[in-house]
């Protein structure tokens, strides 16, 4: 069985291709990688989640005075206790399932995560969180670098984005990462209905894609994609038959997590999954309080999707081999704007959830008094929350203690911190 891996750097295009062997062999790789091995599910809240409406410092008087319309009354928050600075914290009222998981000790909230000179740009902010490099946010993402560091050959299903796009965080230099938004739609068609002729079409597609001329890196790159498609079709089809143990919602996040659970139960060997929910860029009519409000709806979706996933995994006996890590590109401004919304801010909140997570409140809430920058917890004239925990320390914890890799190489520095020992 010959397995070749070539890299081209020509004309500025960095393309890679893998001469794939028979699908049966790839299944062997998946099995050898350990169908029961650990999975990381990265959840991105796109648009800049308003951390102060997720984990609410509901006893801070400035929370109410600076957010006259959108503050959530103390009586409505879901109390989860007090952080190490003595600030009582409450979850958004719609996060009832997450409160239960928190009380079970399987949900960690890491407050005030970020980095120095936080970018207020969605795109640069996302790039920085994706590459874990505030100084130069181009190139491969942190998850892509993790996949690149796995011993070759790397299965093209080692990473699976449930989006149509490949998120920047999963962009790799040498590894093909699958983007499969819909398991049921992941089949190949042919103009001829006879099954023998369909097989010939597929063989024809495969034959053309097998040519990876080094002098034509553009063609080779696309052919690498076609090869990855052909190498993953049959295994992904097995996920389509998965019958979950709970009902998932019809929203994109729930459906994405259902596919993830199916892939885990079928043991197809994926190590890193990406799921996403958008709509967090709440500049106007944020709607944190009314049941029909925009933000309330986002929290309700997040809650139902994660709760279903958590319960399904528990029923399948996979909770201890799963870690869910949530992030967003920035938090939002403390004071609400004239549109009952919030503009781009700085420090964010992260969450980690799973059977082996040491749950609880990590980090401290800001003090929202703008005078004196909230005792050092605020920046930008007291308008934004300043970070306390470098987000790369959270990544380091995941890379070292969950994925079993080395964060020093993948993050390009030592960001290990004993303060975020949630796993």
């Amino acid at each position, binding site marked *: 069985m010959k397995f070749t891996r070539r890299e081209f750097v020509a*004309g*500025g*295009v960095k393309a890679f291709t893998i001469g794939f062997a028979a699908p049966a062999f790839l299944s062997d790789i998946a099995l050898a990688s350990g169908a029961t091995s650990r999975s990381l599910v990265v959840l991105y809240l*796109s648009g800049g989640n308003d951390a102060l409406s997720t984990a609410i410092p509901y006893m801070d008087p400035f929370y109410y005075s600076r957010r006259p319309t959108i503050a959530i009354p103390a009586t409505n928050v879901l109390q989860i206790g007090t952080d190490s600075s003595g600030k009582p914290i409450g979850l958004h009222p719609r996060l009832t399932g997450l409160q239960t998981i928190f009380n079970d000790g399987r949900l960690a909230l890491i407050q005030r995560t970020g980095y120095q000179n936080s970018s*207020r*740009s*969605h*795109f*640069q902010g996302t790039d920085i969180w994706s590459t874990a490099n505030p100084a130069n946010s181009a190139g491969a993402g942190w998850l892509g670098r993790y996949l690149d560091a796995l011993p070759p050959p790397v299965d*093209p299903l080692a990473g699976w*984005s449930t989006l*149509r*796009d*490949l998120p920047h965080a999963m962009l790799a230099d040498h590894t*093909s*990462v*699958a*983007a*499969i*938004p*819909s398991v049921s*739609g*992941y089949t*190949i*068609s*042919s*103009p*001829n209905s006879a099954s*023998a*002729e369909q097989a*010939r*079409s597929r*063989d*024809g*597609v495969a*034959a*053309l894609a*097998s*040519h990876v*001329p080094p002098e034509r890196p*553009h*063609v*080779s*790159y*696309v*052919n690498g*994609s*076609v090869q*990855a*498609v052909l190498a993953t079709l049959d295994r992904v089809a097995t996920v389509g038959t998965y019958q979950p143990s709970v009902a998932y919602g019809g929203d994109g996040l729930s459906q994405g997590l259902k596919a993830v659970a199916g892939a885990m139960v079928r043991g197809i060997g994926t190590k890193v999954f990406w799921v996403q929910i958008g709509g967090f*860029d709440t*500049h*106007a009519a944020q709607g944190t309080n009314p049941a029909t409000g925009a933000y309330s709806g986002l929290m309700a979706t997040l809650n139902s999707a994660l709760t279903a996933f958590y319960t399904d995994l528990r029923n399948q006996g996979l909770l201890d081999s799963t870690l869910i890590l949530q992030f967003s590109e920035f938090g939002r401004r403390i004071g609400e*704007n*004239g*549109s009952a*919304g919030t*503009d*781009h801010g700085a420090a964010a909140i992260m969450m980690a959830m799973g059977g082996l997570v040491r749950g609880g409140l990590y980090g401290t809430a800001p003090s929202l008094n703008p005078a004196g920058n909230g005792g050092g917890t605020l920046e*930008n004239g007291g308008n934004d929350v300043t970070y306390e925990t470098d987000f790369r320390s959270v990544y380091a914890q995941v890379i070292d203690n969950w994925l079993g890799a080395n964060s020093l190489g993948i993050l390009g520095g030592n960001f290990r911190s004993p303060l975020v020992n949630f796993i």
Partner: protein
Amino acid sequence: MDKPLPNIEHLLRRAGFGVSPADKERFPAGVPYRQAVDWLVSYPGSTDVDASIGTPGFMGITASGGFAPNTNIAHARQRWLFRMVHSPAPLLERLTLLWHHHFATGYNKVAAAFGSAADGARLMDAKPSEDPARQMGQIDMLRRGAFGSFRSLLLNIAQDPAMLIWLDGISNVKAKPQENFARELMELFTIGVGEFAETDVYAAARVFTGWNLARGSGASPLYRFQYNASQHDTDAKDFSFEVTPSGRHVRASNRIPARDANSGMQDGIDLLTTLANHPLTARRLARRFWTWFVSETEPAPDSFVDAVAGVYLDNQTSIRATLRAVLTSPEFTDTNRPFQRYAWPVEFVVRSLREIGWTGFSANDALTPLTSMGQTLYEPPDVSGWDLGLAWFTTGGMLARLNFASQLATNQRVAIRDAARPWSSSPNSLVDFCYDRLSLPPVTLDNQISLVNYALAGGAWTGSDAQLLTKAPGMIHIVSGSAEYQLV
């Protein structure tokens, strides 16, 4: 039929949507390159092909309950694809698509603002002559101004109702300035990220206070820009860069002066003019044109950026002049350039239709495949537009391309069989047919062998109609789904 010169085919693939049979007649061998550039950049006639919608010989549309492209977004998508397929000078549609990417605005948020899907579609792309209130949609505005001055485009987009909703200008008032439009104006539309300070965002937000939206009454209300003098912040605004209200450096000042409320709208015009004429905008647009027309994977060389940015600034931000400079640049016309740019999904689909055939195909049947490939018209993923280049070629995106190739070959199967009859003598001849039909580089030996093997799989070659009906569409599927055909 004479084939166009290779450089004209290159031009048509990159500045149009491939080489249709009409293009082959229009540009027979011997037509000089400059003439084809003129045709695309300064087409003298009307490119409005809407009158042909629903008539025989053209691509079909599917509309239950009547075709209503001004009020139904799925119909609008079909209409736009129809225009791309049938326009005699398709650069206008391509350029409009590029401005849609540049000023990326999403239908869903626009439609949700007033809870009306019909108004959302109107604000995206209503044709004023067909709208009861003479509403002009954003894309229609971009189409009209596509070749004009970038400054005008910027002034129009800042006052465009869909944009006012999309980036929340609708609620930008004196007491609480809205930063959303202010930030993206500088970060994405003009000078670029890293070229301005956070304080510039705050100042620009104040500049546009009172730039709001008025909504008329009735079943099809007119949405229009309205300057609310009472909601304008009249204080002076300071920037980290020089403000040049005339577009040119006169005397160094970084300040937009305090103005009374009634004349305060001039603040925004000053800032937009400044940004349109800013040398950093010229260079950024030059780099964008490089990405859109030359290469997404190589950085633009300084020589190109200097030349194109110079033309832009010397011609009062004229897009037509700038584009002509791009399409006649030594970098664009370099004979090593063809087939090294990754086609956008819309380019791939429209080119396939123009080169393989459209008779009996409904534009509606391309909409779901386009979404699966990662490009839904009127719904870019966010205000930064689509991720281009390598990013299109995820496994899911690639599979969708392969399957669209199959879908179209199935749809056109009889027409393909008929067209292939003169080429039925041998499998090699059938390969030649495919490469002639699709504007591709010469077939490589590797591909030739693979395709001949496909033709022979299942039985010896006879060239019979039955065999041709299986293998000709089958081979068109494989070739139009191949890596080579994803490149332009």
